[in-house]
């Protein structure tokens, strides 16, 4: 037997293998192609610049005496706090119990009777008992009430709403309401007969002072008529509600104290109907009032109005993220990549993490710059901005970055499946950008727009919505002022699409000959 040459042995030492090395390699790949880096940075820039252009397009005039800022609720949001209030001071713990025997109302000049004031109760007309910090608009409160057509409710601090017994109120079917205060905890009860009580809910109002106001209230929001179609719009009509209360009993209140009646938030000299009033006769009270105690329904610009550039940034992100894989297929470099890392699923994972992370950073910086700059431009143009909590603002910023990042991963997956830039980019724009633009800007029927923003990846734009849609407020806003899905639910739709696309891409990259 012949002795062969000595086989070669390398003295080269390498580190551990693993995902970190692949991430390092993919990051090096990304940062060494100037076009991809510029593309990603410009996605952030586009987000800012298009956002600024859009912000500059909003003009709102203010009266000469200056813009009126709506009251701000305890959670920092704008609120409506207009109602008729009959109250007494409450020192420490106590409670109020009443029986409501009727809720009626008036609607002024509805479209079908343009010259008349007609009887009618709007769905969210409210009458009941309330404990409120003070008469200051926006101060904390909790209340239990009967409504026009939503039964008994407990509501507190403007945004919270709990349903109680349904059904209307009349002399034949009265409602007993009770609200108790035990330091900062306010608990509400209701009863049909005054003896069998059911708890509706309770609220914790931190920081409530010892002395508060307790009493009866009535409010009646605008009657809002939306006419469908392109030429349509909304119109609002002043309304008034009137409620009868009896069996009023107070605990914790100084005996013999009198009632003070006050139309909170109503300017004197306005329409007579809006002034409301209080009549007391032999222990029976009749209150009339206008207004609402609820989150403000609009009138200002929202945080997300500064992020109108997102869809444009999304197009840039889709192109760059697709190229991140299709460029390899086009040049045959995918073979080099898969020779270097035969574990193909990991290659895909590393690419997804790298493109997702860099896009996230670009989106984060872009959104964090676009929002304050956009708000500054909006304010300079006389717009008011609907304030939200910093947590919500953070969610909008991080959510915008996440929207872009997850879309980049989706684009990478689709690019892996198609292996061609043109096909992948087209598919993604049709699936994601087009539905958004159509739903927001095109004259589609409301149902179609809603459907587009539910079933396509464009549902994820909901993550930018800063103001929740409160069911207890009927707004006159355009149908897509609110996205049809909750922020994280809409985002989850995109994540599901991305997960499915990634799974398909992983399956194909493993099975296919490279």
């Amino acid at each position: 037997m012949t002795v062969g040459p000595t086989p070669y042995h390398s003295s080269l030492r390498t580190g551990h293998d693993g995902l970190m090395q692949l991430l390092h390699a993919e990051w090096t790949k990304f940062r060494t192609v100037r076009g991809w880096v510029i593309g990603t940075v410009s996605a952030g820039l586009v987000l800012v610049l298009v956002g600024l252009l859009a912000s500059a397009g909003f003009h709102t005039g203010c009266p000469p005496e200056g813009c009126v800022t709506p009251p701000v609720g305890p959670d920092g949001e704008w609120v409506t706090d207009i109602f008729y209030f009959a109250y007494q001071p409450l020192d420490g713990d106590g409670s109020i119990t009443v029986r409501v025997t009727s809720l009626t109302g008036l609607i002024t000049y509805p479209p079908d009777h343009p010259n008349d004031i007609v009887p009618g109760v709007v769905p969210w007309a409210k009458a009941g008992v309330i404990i409120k910090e003070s008469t200051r608009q926006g101060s904390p409160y909790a209340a239990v009430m009967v409504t026009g057509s939503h039964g008994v409710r407990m509501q507190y601090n403007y945004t919270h709403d709990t349903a109680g017994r349904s059904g209307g109120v009349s002399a034949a079917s009265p409602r007993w309401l009770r609200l108790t205060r035990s330091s900062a905890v306010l608990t509400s009860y209701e009863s049909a007969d005054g003896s069998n009580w059911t708890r509706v809910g309770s609220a914790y109002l931190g920081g409530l002072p010892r002395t508060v106001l307790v009493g009866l209230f009535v409010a009646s929001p605008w009657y809002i008529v939306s006419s469908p179609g392109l030429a349509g719009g909304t119109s609002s009509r002043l309304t008034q509600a009137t409620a009868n209360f009896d069996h009023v009993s107070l605990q914790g209140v100084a005996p013999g104290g009198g009632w003070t009646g006050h139309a909170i938030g109503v300017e004197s000299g306005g329409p007579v109907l809006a002034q409301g009033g209080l009549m007391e006769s032999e222990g029976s009270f009749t209150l009339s009032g206008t207004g609402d105690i609820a989150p403000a329904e609009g009138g200002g610009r929202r945080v997300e109005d500064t992020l109108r550039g997102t869809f444009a940034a999304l197009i840039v992100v889709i192109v760059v993220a697709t190229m991140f894989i299709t460029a390899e297929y086009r040049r045959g470099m995918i073979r080099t990549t898969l020779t270097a890392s035969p574990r193909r699923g990991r290659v895909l994972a590393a690419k997804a993490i790298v493109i997702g992370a860099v896009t996230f950073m670009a989106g984060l910086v872009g959104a964090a710059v676009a929002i304050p700059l956009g708000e500054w431009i909006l304010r300079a143009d006389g717009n008011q901005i609907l304030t939200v909590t910093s947590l919500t603002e953070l969610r909008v910023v991080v959510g915008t970055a996440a929207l872009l990042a997850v879309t980049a991963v989706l684009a990478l997956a689709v690019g892996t499946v198609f292996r061609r830039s043109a096909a992948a980019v087209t598919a993604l724009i049709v699936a994601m950008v087009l539905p958004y633009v159509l739903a927001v800007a095109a004259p589609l029927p409301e149902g179609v727009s809603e459907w587009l923003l539910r079933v396509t990846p464009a549902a994820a734009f909901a993550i930018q919505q800063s103001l929740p849609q409160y069911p207890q407020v009927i707004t006159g806003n355009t149908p897509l002022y609110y996205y049809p899905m909750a922020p994280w639910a809409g985002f989850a739709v995109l994540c599901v699409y991305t997960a499915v696309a990634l799974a398909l891409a992983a399956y194909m990259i493993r099975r296919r000959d490279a």
Partner: protein
Amino acid sequence: MEATIEVTELSKRFGQTMALDQLSFNVTPGHVTGFVGPNGAGKSTTMRVILGLDAADAGQALVGGRPYRSLRHPFNHVGALLDASALQPSRTGRNHLLWLAHSQGLTAARVDEVIGLVGLETAARRKAGGYSLGMRQRLGIAAALLGDPPVLMFDEPINGLDPEGIVWMRGFLRALAAEGRAVLVSSHLMSELQDTADHLIVIGRGRLIADVGVADLLAAAADGRVTLRTSARSEAMTALARAGATVATTDRDTLTVSGLAAERVVAVLGENTVPFSEVAPHRATLEEAYMELTRDAVEFHAAVGQAEAQ
């Protein structure tokens, strides 16, 4: 032995075409092994299967005893250059090597080492899109050497190089083998492997035609023939034929004689007073040996015909 490629009964079909048909061979360390066959014979497919890029329908390919896909730092086991043009044109050559190095847990220092090995220092920081084919080949070889592997595979590394590049490449391949590495080099032109390969694996239509040492092959092809240079061609042919030899005309004054040893040829020519200027044992070229080898491979001829027809 560790540093080997073992290909066993490899078969792969692309639609109606049998790309690989029960192909088996081994590549041993310390040699340059030529992997020869016409375009479309299955050389690149074989290399892709060895590298785990394509899946075979049957059979297996092992590198150092293991399937490529099971290797953790594959560049420490095998270095390969399949397609020198598979580059992102806007990335510099050095950065191309850098991401490859990072994928193997290697550092930038190693990148600069291999750049030095292939003599690409001046071009390394330029965009790869502007590289000549020779520079791309050098870059590809640098990439293959990153992990300092005992096995190297190059697909058509000489194709398209200028004469200077060919000389460099041949020397480089031989030097790598001299270090004890197994070097597999494919080519569709036998002549490219002249003076480079020690061993040949010849395939056609996905089948093994020969697995033979170059020295043995050349000896067999020469087959005891004698080259005769003479100004009196017809007299020489007559005399030698009478003496029992088979004579073929090679060109105007050269004959190839078989069936007679060189001394007998000299004797016969002397007896018949035929003038001649040279009598020497025939030295076969690889190209000739290749033709000899494939003469009987009817299918292979058909394949060549098809390839030419395309």
